[in-house]
């Protein structure tokens, strides 16, 4: 008697939901092992993390604050991942979006009608993000340059560039040597809706709904899905693959750019250290754990934000490194990847007589 994997005729819907949920709990078990080895009680740690992230209303709004950029970047990379275009440059696209928004808010807001400042700065932020994703997209579509590497390398370039600006030419002369630009004028502030959680939340929810519909129903969504599943088929159907990739990546970059734009105009209200803290990488986990489904991505983003806010709390309360949140985030996909095989295959028990083999 032994286990054999048998190909399913259709992707299992049950597995699609069950696998991520089971994965989450398995990753908690795995992390419990790490915690026990480093002499911390897993139960106490998890309770503290959960309370820190979701226990009180103020804490929950802080979790939302971290969830907003994860939602936007998660949606952003999910578009690219659907086409098997591995955009791991959301971090850089977010950073450049923040830089461009700061540029408008700091240097162009004076000559503009006040009501235009915020929309203009957000749109320029999105354009900057789109540009930063567009470069690897064009290189890939035209020359087949490996996009994983170009998108990643551009992260470093964007982050170094932003640091150069707020440590150098854009540094606030009245900032007492603090690395950061001057605060934005109030006309460039993104309104907050609960605690520090800002309107970016509404953008994210709205965009997720639009994307969900567009992926399912529009011509573009159809092309994106076909390119991801089977490029040869896409070519036979007369789809201009290069064009679809570039356009979709411009959209992907714009979403990441919006994440950065909202961060600087809604949270820090200036360009400073702490913009590029890994949202773009966590976005990969968010998108994959959400099975690239826009609506699921919203909820997974809140969960992942909870892990990182909880991680900070654990540091304050229990003296454990805040990186525990990162470890948990990093662990979460392993069981998920191992389990994904059950979406396409079902395990069957085959009885074999020992003599026949």
């Amino acid at each position: 008697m032994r286990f054999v994997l048998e190909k399913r005729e259709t992707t299992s819907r049950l597995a699609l939901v069950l696998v991520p949920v089971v994965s989450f709990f398995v990753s908690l078990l795995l992390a419990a092992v790490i915690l026990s080895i480093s002499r911390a009680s897993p139960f106490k740690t998890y309770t503290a993390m959960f309370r820190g992230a979701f226990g009180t209303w103020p804490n929950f709004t802080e979790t939302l604050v971290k969830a907003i950029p994860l939602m936007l970047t998660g949606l952003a990379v999910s578009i690219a991942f659907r086409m098997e275009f591995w955009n791991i440059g959301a971090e850089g696209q977010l950073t450049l979006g923040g830089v461009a928004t700061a540029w408008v808010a700091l240097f162009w807001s004076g000559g503009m009608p006040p009501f235009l400042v915020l929309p203009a700065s957000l749109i320029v932020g999105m354009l900057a993000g789109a540009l930063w994703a567009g470069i690897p997209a064009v290189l890939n579509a035209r020359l087949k340059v490996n996009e994983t590497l170009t998108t990643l390398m551009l992260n470093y370039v964007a982050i170094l560039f932003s640091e150069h600006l707020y440590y150098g030419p854009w540094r606030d002369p009245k900032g007492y040597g603090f690395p950061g630009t001057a605060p934005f004028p109030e006309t460039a502030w993104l309104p907050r809706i609960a605690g520090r959680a800002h309107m970016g939340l509404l953008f994210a929810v709205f965009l997720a709904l639009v994307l969900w519909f567009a992926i399912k129903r529009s011509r573009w969504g159809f092309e994106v899905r076909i390119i991801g599943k089977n490029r040869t088929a896409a070519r036979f159907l007369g789809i201009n693959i290069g064009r679809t990739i570039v356009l979709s990546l411009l959209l992907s970059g714009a979403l990441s750019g919006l994440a950065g734009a909202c961060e600087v105009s809604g949270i820090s209200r200036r360009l400073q250290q702490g913009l590029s803290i890994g949202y773009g990488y966590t976005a990969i986990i968010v998108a994959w754990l959400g099975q690239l489904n826009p609506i699921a991505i919203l909820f997974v983003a809140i969960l992942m934000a909870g892990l990182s806010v909880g991680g900070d709390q654990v540091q304050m309360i229990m003296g454990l490194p805040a990186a525990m949140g990162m470890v948990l985030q990093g662990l979460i996909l392993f069981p998920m990847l191992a389990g994904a095989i059950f979406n396409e295959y079902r395990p069957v028990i085959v009885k074999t007589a020992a003599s026949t083999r």
Partner: protein
Amino acid sequence: MLLLITSILTITLRAGTSLVYATVGETYTERSGILNLGMEGMMLMGAVSAFAAAYYSGNLLAGVLVAMLVGMALSAVHAFLSITMRANQVVSGLCITLFGGGMASYLGQRLGPESNSYYLVGLVGPRFTPISVPVLGRLPVFGAVFNQDVLTYIMYAVVPLAWMYLFRTRDGLNLRSVGEKPHTADAMGVNVFRVRYLATIFGGMLAGLGGAHLSLAYTPGWSENITGGRGWIVIALVIFAMWNPARAVLGAILFGGINAVQFRLQAAGTTIPAAFLNMLPYLATIFVLVAVTWWENLSKRLGAPGALCKPYIREEK
């Protein structure tokens, strides 16, 4: 002038050592058909574990061995997911990098002694120091090759051996055939799964070793993000070297050289802002990738192994 060239070349080789080890490792992995994007995470874990092990044991060899074991363990996870569970190799590799990065950061704040509030940052541990070979070490320019630490000297031997094994032995041929045409290799009696597991774990071992060189020799000590993207540059170097371990040296010298020039310019007090100098390796990676890909398209030569990134499914008989 000769002195300057010698010193730049010395730093170049020192900076390139970790890159060479990891590039040779990733070359083997990819030659067997498995893409491992977890190099950055494995190098970070290698660096932190090497430093911690060497710090507590006072023994450099222990540090190196622990780093290699850690690299093997992480790559074994990748091997299991991508070979046995047929998971998406890109995502699995990214996971190794994300987990490795988080875990290395966690360990760096947890493994230290109580006196340093459990941090590893700022501690001074044992380190590999350059050993000058008598006579040869005094030569102008070439002396750079012979003023290195033990791990770099070992690298001089590893590269030709890795090349010979891959291109001049039966096992090497099997490894390459598994990466090109796994079905044919299987029909010829090669155990595809076994070869892929071994090649992936070997790659992880060398990534760990590369990480160890960073924290024990190149920039001794542990600091957050000590690799600075080297694990990713390695992936590009494999493409640049056209999946040939011997050519990996050229790429590593190129990138080590960029590091060395960066150092020199900063030390000389240039007016170019440091941020732009620091961008050089990343911009160079993009440039090199574009150039190599363009050349590949032009000459119609395909460098990548045919079955790279494709899980092997053995039909039930």
